[in-house]
Structure formats: C-alpha cells, structure tokens
C-alpha cells in the first residue's frame, strides 16, 4: 500500500474501503538472525534500516506492550542538531539530514516541520558560548545563526526582554530544526519495517537472555524462547533493568521528565524557543496546543509521572519568559522515564556478551536522534563496526576517560 495524494483522492471517491492495517500482527518464529528488543522509535528505526539499507532478513522486534508505547509517544517532538562536541554534532546533523528526507524515504507523513529552534542567551558569556557552539555546528555541516536582541524581538515580540534576572540579549537560531509528529515517526518506521518482512511482535516481554559461553543464543520471553544470532537492545528508560538480565551494570540512572500541553490556541509561537536559564522550552503543535517542558525531577524514578514542585518550576519559567502564557490553561501533564547517562551522551555499542548490542543512555534527547540512532545501530548490528558518526558512543568510554560531556557537569546524571 503506497501513500500518495492520488491515493487519497481515489479512496475518498470509493468510500475509504481500500485502506489496510499498516502492519501485520505475526506470531513469533522459533528463531531469527536479528532480534531488536524494544518496539519504540529507536528499535523500529533500527529494524527498518537493517532490512532496507543493510538488506538483512529474518528480523524481529519484540515489544512488551504496543508499538510506540514508551518515550516515542511521550516526548515534546523537537528535532534539532545544535550540539557542540565533536563526538555529538556530526551524529545529530546526520540525524537532521535523515529527518529532512524521512517522509519520502519511508512514504509516510511524519509531519516534519522545520520551523526553527531558538536558544535564548542572557549574558555576554552565554553569547560567546553560543557563538562557539554555532561555529561547531557550521563545521559539522549544520546551520546556525547568532541573533541579536532586536532580531529575536522581530521573531518573538511576546517575550519578556527586560526580565530583571535574565534579560534577553540574543539567541542562537537553527532554522532547519523544528518538530515532527512523534507517533507518526514510530508508525512510519514500523510500517516500513513490516513491508520488508520484519516481524513486529507486540505484547512480548523479554524476561531473560540465553547466553552460552559468553555468546548470546536467544532471548526468553513471555511468549517462549526465541533463538537469535544477534540481539540489539533499544529500551531507553528501562536499559538498566533489561541489561541486568545479562549481568551488566550500566552508567545510567533512570529519571522522570515531565511534559505539558495547553489548550489549543491560535498560532502564536513561531518555532521552538528554549529558555535554558529558566528551565523552560516551548513550541506550538499543529493543533494549537503549547507544548512545553523543563528539567527532569532529579531523583531516580520509574514511575512515568513526576511531582508538583517541578510543574511549579516550569510554570514559573514560562511566566518569566512569556507572561502571556499565564492566560493559557494547562490541558495535560505527563512523565516519561529517561536513561540519564553519566556524561549526558548516549551509548551505541557492542557489549562484553558476544552478539549482544546496546543502544541506550539517550537522556532527554532521544527523539531527535531516532533516525540516526536506528541507522547507526543497524550499521553496528549488520557490519559489527560502529557507524562513522556514532564511533564515540562507546560503552567503555567512561572507564577510559573519553566522556562526551556537553554540559561539563561530570558524573552526575540529574544535572545533564
């Protein structure tokens, strides 16, 4: 089933009887060459690129709940590549380029909208840091523009430029950044993978790994044993729990991050605006809701819900930045569980268990990375070598001292 404008017209004229389910609901086979644990964005993208780009077959994705039921459906949908460090920026720019061609690539409307992201600065030192980051982005082939106060005012006249503590002095703008429809991304990858023969097996929780002589031979699941040549784990939020079944401890703490959406409003926010100093960022969905958030709650959690003090903190940040938000009513608040890694950067690597691979530690930046994470993880699974943009995301980088610490706060996950 190919999606196109012509198809929409034809279906409209014939009573919409030709639409089919986007994927099958297969029974698990006794054995696969590749098993991906986790049917979220990264897992589905991995299966998609493994089948399509790397031409592999006999692939299954095992998901304990329904597809896309974790963080791919709980994030605030921002895509961007505005990182500083050489271990990160080429990877995120690779992801940005994949986003730009994604809908044509997998023939599905992911509502990728390059409406721009604006990071606000409030001091000369912060502007210098933004200039440096912008230059790092340009060197990696991304786009970046440093805006002065009046240019920011022209874009977003509703901001409070004269806040006593954080007056707005300018901003770093990435025009190619923006938002995407998060569920659509999961569905597009799932459909694309299914069309290429990947078995997407839902309600199938992995309960253990079968490891013989240091090599993986399969997984135990709630639907029985499934043999596998290679197993890739992409279960951010639960990585420590899953990898503990293989006897591993990870450089990760699980933390809850809350997100918010207001009632639907007329178009008012031009893109994504971040107010890092005030723990607040905001964009507006195509339905009109203001989608916003702040920092993680800051303590280990697997609860998928946070506490009120952070809601208050985020609301205060919003009021400080754009006082008009006080007139909007909050519609929903929810939480997602983040793999907070020890340096704030992810892990895409093999593990000490032969044939077992790990994709984890995305902190609260996993959504934007979905295409490149899937691509790089598929590259690693298919070829045994890291993708060139993901070669710094090694599991042993902590012990070796090669951390990728964008914020420079050290091994303190709740500060990243």
């Amino acid at each position, binding site marked *: 089933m190919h999606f196109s404008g012509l198809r929409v017209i034809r279906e409209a004229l014939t009573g919409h009887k030709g639409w089919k389910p986007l994927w099958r609901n297969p029974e698990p086979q006794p054995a696969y060459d590749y098993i991906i644990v986790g049917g979220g964005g990264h897992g589905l993208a991995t299966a998609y690129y493994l089948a399509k780009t790397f031409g592999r077959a006999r692939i299954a994705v095992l998901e304990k709940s329904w597809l896309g039921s974790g963080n791919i459906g709980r994030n605030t949908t921002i895509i961007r590549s505005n990182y500083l460090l050489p271990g990160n920026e080429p990877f995120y720019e690779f992801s940005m380029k994949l986003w730009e061609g994604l809908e044509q690539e997998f023939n599905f409307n992911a509502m990728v909208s390059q409406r721009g992201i604006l990071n606000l600065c409030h001091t000369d030192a912060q502007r210098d840091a933004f200039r440096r980051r912008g230059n790092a982005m340009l060197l990696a082939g991304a786009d970046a523009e440093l805006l002065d106060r009046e240019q920011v005012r022209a874009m977003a006249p509703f901001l409070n430029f004269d806040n006593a503590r954080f007056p707005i002095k300018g901003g770093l703008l990435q025009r190619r950044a923006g938002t995407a429809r998060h569920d659509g991304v999961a569905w597009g990858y799932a459909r694309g993978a299914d069309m290429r023969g990947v078995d997407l097996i839902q309600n199938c929780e992995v309960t253990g790994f079968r490891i013989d002589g240091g090599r993986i031979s399969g997984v135990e699941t709630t639907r029985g044993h499934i043999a596998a040549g290679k197993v890739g784990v992409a279960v951010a939020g639960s990585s420590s729990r899953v990898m503990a079944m293989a006897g591993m401890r990870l450089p990760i703490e*699980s933390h809850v991050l809350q997100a918010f959406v207001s009632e639907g409003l007329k178009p008012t926010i031009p893109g994504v605006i971040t107010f890092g100093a005030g723990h607040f960022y905001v964009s507006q969905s195509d339905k009109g809701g203001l989608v916003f958030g702040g920092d993680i709650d800051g303590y280990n959690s697997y609860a998928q819900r946070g506490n009120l003090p952070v809601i208050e903190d985020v609301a205060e940040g919003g009021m400080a930045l754009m006082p008009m938000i006080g007139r909007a009513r909050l519609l929903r608040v929810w939480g997602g569980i983040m793999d907070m890694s020890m340096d704030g950067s992810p892990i895409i690597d093999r593990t000490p268990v032969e044939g077992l691979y790990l994709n984890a530690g995305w902190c609260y930046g996993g959504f934007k990375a979905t295409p490149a994470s899937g691509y790089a993880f598929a590259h690693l699974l298919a070829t045994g070598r890291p993708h060139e943009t993901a070669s710094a995301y090694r599991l042993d980088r*902590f012990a070796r001292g090669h951390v990728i610490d964008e914020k420079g706060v050290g091994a303190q996950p*709740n500060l990243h």
Partner: protein
Amino acid sequence: MLIPHPLLGLRDAQEFTYLGDAALLNRPDGMAEGAEAAFAEYVYLRDNPAGVHRELWFHEQGDRSWLVVTRDTTTHEILGAELARDVKLKGGAA
C-alpha cells in the same frame, strides 16, 4: 514528597538536593590493588533498580545533613530515612 528527617521530622523534598545511590558512601581505597577499575565502577556504574532504592539526599535548605533515604522508585513512596553518618559508621550502605 515528604522526607522523614530523623532529627527534624517530615520535611519537603524541595529542601533537599539529590546525589544518587547510597552505595556512594562506600568509596574504594585509592591505594589498593586495582583501584583504577574500582573507581571507574564507583564513579560511573549504578544498579539503578526499579523498586526499593537507598539514596543520598542533602538537606541543603535545612540543617545541611546528609540522609540515606529509602524510597520506591516505581511509586516515589518514601520508606524511611537515616542520617548518612549513622549508616556510614555502621559500615556503609550495603
């Protein structure tokens, strides 16, 4: 969340800052054999359990004591709190 401070009674968790797993009380011996590997593990690796978790909270906006709080990470229910000093003197957080 309210933390039952052993000296001050129930205190709002907002008065505290969070450090992490109470196993951080068990600092390795830097002079021992294999200290480098032991420190890499101490600094970077965590059990990160879903369920009961013993963790260090600092009463920054209060009496500036360190507590070991026992909390369920799946529900945020706080099951108890001790002075970290007492825990350490009893031999550390197992």
